């Protein structure tokens, strides 16, 4: 909205004008509060939807619900702060959203699933390769002691860092640059999440994973996660992977596979 300078001058010099301005300020404060409430309601609905999905995929995640701490973290992080302005209305929908630079912010359900698969404990150190919007790091920061995140696209790194600062996420440490070598200074990590893998998982990341730790990689293009690959490093250092399909879909019925 553009106001003419003349109108502004008149407003400030008249008694009614000052009263009008005061009213406007009050309305703005009220509407800001209302907006925050609206986001809280939307976030609550998002959590319900994620919970329902978790129950449906119980056989895959081997439990009927995501960890309570994960759900709490998802409830604490204001997702709308991490999406571009034009996507604010969609910020709590259970769908991936474009964040510019050809990147997306994952579907909330997938974020919850990946976080749950990592089984993060309060004292853990977590490494993220591919900061993107910063939302995943923010969720992880609610559960872990320290989160280290690396982004290869500079504008995304700058934006996410700014949001972390504004929101006061002091335990998130972000860096712009090559994620291939991980972040050796703070290794080993209890959990690693690689959202920018190009057909292979860099060996230095496997090295920087603690014995007993987990690494998760979503496989698939923008707007579609085909499957999640969960890598577990045994206490003996041996690696086991598990392919987790984010939906329940059994291609065989009955005992056909046995025929």
């Amino acid at each position: 909205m553009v106001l003419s300078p003349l109108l502004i001058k008149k407003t400030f010099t008249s008694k009614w004008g000052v009263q009008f301005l005061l009213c406007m300020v009050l309305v703005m404060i009220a509407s800001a509060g209302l907006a925050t409430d609206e986001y809280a309601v939307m976030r609550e609905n998002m959590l319900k939807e994620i919970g329902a999905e978790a129950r449906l995929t119980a056989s895959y995640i081997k439990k009927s619900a995501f960890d309570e701490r994960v759900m709490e973290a998802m409830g604490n992080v204001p997702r709308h702060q991490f999406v571009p302005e034009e996507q604010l209305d969609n910020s709590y929908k259970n769908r991936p959203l474009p964040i510019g630079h050809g990147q997306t912010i994952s579907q909330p359900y997938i974020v919850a699933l990946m976080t749950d698969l990592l089984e993060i404990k309060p004292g853990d150190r977590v490494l993220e390769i591919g900061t993107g919007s910063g939302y995943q790091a923010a969720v992880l920061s609610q559960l872990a002691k320290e989160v280290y995140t690396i982004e290869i696209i500079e504008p995304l790194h700058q934006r996410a860092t700014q949001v972390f600062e504004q929101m006061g996420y002091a335990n998130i440490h972000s860096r712009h640059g090559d994620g291939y070598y991980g972040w050796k200074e703070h290794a080993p990590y209890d959990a690693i999440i690689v959202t920018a893998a190009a057909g292979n998982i860099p060996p230095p990341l496997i090295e920087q994973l603690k014995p007993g730790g987990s690494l998760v990689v979503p496989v698939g293009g923008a707007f579609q996660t085909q499957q999640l690959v969960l890598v577990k490093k045994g206490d003996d250092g041996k690696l086991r992977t598990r392919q987790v399909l984010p939906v329940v879909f059994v291609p065989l019925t009955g005992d056909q596979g046995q025929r």
Partner: protein
Amino acid sequence: MDTSAKPPVISIMLVSASALAFEVLLIRLFSIIQWHHFAYMIISLALLGYGVSGTIMTLLRERVMPHYVTAYIVNGIGFALTIIASFLLVQKLPFNALEILWDSAQWGYLLAAYLLLLLPFFFVANCIVLTFGAFSEQIPRIYGFDLFGAGVGSLVLIYSLMFLQPQQVLLLISFTVLIAVVVAMLEMRTDYRLTAVVIVVISIATLLMLPKGWLSLQMSPYKPLSQYMQVSGSHVERVLSGPHGVVTVLENRQIPFRLASGISLNNSAEPPTQYALFVDSDGPSALTRYDGDRSKLIYLDYQTSALPYHLSNPARVLILGMGGGSDILQAEYHDVGNIEAVEMNPHLVELLQDDYADFAGWAFLQDHTRIHLSETRAFLAHNQSTYDLIQMSLLDAAGASSAGLYALSENYLYTTEALGLYYRRLQPGGMLSITRWIKVPPRDALKLFATAVTALREEGVSHPENQLAMIRGWNTSTLLIKHGVFTAEDIRSLQQFCDERSFDVAWYPGITDSEVNLFNAIDKPYFYEGARALLGKSAAAFIDDYKFSISPATDDRPYYFNFFKWESLAEILSLQRRAGFSLIELGYLVLVFTLIQALLVSVLLVLLPLRFVPRENNAPDRPYIAAVMLYFVLIGLAFLFVEIAFIQRFILFLGDPVYAVAAVLCGFLVFSGLGSFTAPFVRRCCRINPVVLAVTGITIVILASLWLHPLVFQALAIQTTAIKLIASVALIAPLAFFMGMPFPIALNSVSERAGWLLPWAWSVNGFASLMSAIVATLIAVHFGFTSVMLLAVLFYSLAALVFALNLTKQVHSDSVNASS
């Protein structure tokens, strides 16, 4: 209008050439900036412009026809301008195909894209249908020039793409149309010819002087090239453009590429410096530095595709689809003495052998490596040599789709016939190794396994289970087919290879339940259970019940990448919002969706003008109108059915799909044009109904071709491309000649009955042709291309019947009435 004027046939030829070139070029352009499936849908629906033109002209004929010359010129200029303007505007739309199932706004952008691209086709169709109307007695001649021009257009386009970038070709097409407008003015001797020449010259000069980059392609930010470009430090090193696609070489010194697919997590080596190669913005594949030190290539031994090198020491290896040359380096790492590679894209060969020869270490490879510039199947059909190992890794070769014709990609590399051919080119004890990406639940890996089982049985192997092995890593699977039985030692080596790399075994002779699904666990051992079921007695029932289509692809139904099953659609759609998007086989659904949209619009626009046409005394009755509609629907469907099915057959015979499509299309259109030219003579000289005569010819040639083609193709398989081309033209010519007749003969007849029927029949035919390409693909997916051809025979026969019973009689009686 001045009745002494002549039809602007040279101009018609030029605009038709431009229209066909524009259509094919659009598919190339959209394949670069968007995704092929949606490119196909947008352009299919843009072709509605032809039908819409007929509808509008049916309604406005009386008002437009007196100003034919002006209308032709205005539409010509409209075509020239919208060729560029529509494309530029469509590029500006924020359409994102990947978001279409998430965001309803995308449907609006898609509709806007259709409408914008419909305009150029609408204008060019107006030029043609107006000329038919103005010179209805010369329809066969005009139609002949129209087809001839289109045929030449397909060849000129491919030729232009060798020297110019796609967006420059777009400009060239627009210039050609402007020149066609001037030619029309000269042909029709209009008053303001000189002014027009000056305006056209100024327009072309202005467009050429515009600042560089105004016509640059704006890729979707989600195309792999766009995404890699976003990474700090990425820059384009080189762009090579040609008919096989635009090859982009990307470099990044700040954040190096480490491209190596399917590497075991147990690998600790980093790949050497690499360039990333993209073809039509898709990829990347790696062009890797090689300095003669094989130890630096050790990471390639951690791919699932390295398995065959651990079971034997192949002396002679053939790599199908070279890409950036990673498989050559894998063979080099294993010290193979004789490496051969087949690659269809000349630019990729050029990069390895010339432009980046020092970087890629060609000097260390060239004494024992040979690269053949050829299509895979054609190379193996032509070359009778046998190999110890044939290696095919993650190769998604281009079919006709890269030439831009259909939504579902045909692929002749993974059919039972192809696997049989590869098998025959193996030395005794030799192996064929095919690597694919892992999809969970498995789709292409099991379809490939089913295809291998069938191919082996067809090659006379009674126990295929003893000659097959399949392993999988965390994101790739490799299938081995051995020319001979796997020995105990082979199996020990296979187990050791998998153990060392944490790969899982999915099949080998003697495998047990306890050995599967150990390292890369999936919910159930689907790969093993699938392989076992496919080798068992109930394989057919397993394929039937499986929720994706995994029945083997054949040369007649070459849709290896189509896994869609109607039975699973409801379940998958219900999972869509729950991250189930990747289970949806979009290619097939896009095709069905395109058909539904086209059908709805067509029915509406065909029936609409019937309410407004003049109702004078001698107006055609309803049965006659219905017969006209039926006739033009039938021949519209049949013409493209035959053309599409023939193109498929000749792609396999001629090898390179890009050139094969251009050659076959050109042959069809040029000889159909000749048929159209000849039609009036046939009508005058023959006592037989000319349509019946043409359809008899078509039927005989098609039925004979079912028997003749395989014989000719086999006999000439090892001949040169030139001989194959001559043979192809000889096989196409008689059929195309007859196929050029039914349309102009009938159009001429119905226009004599009532003037408005001409543009209306044109619109009916336009809509039917649009749907024909879609319906043909759907039939081919389910029943094969032979069925498509047989249906075409049926449609042509029915059309002949309709013509003989309904259309001829009335024309004849009318002409009798008129003469009396």
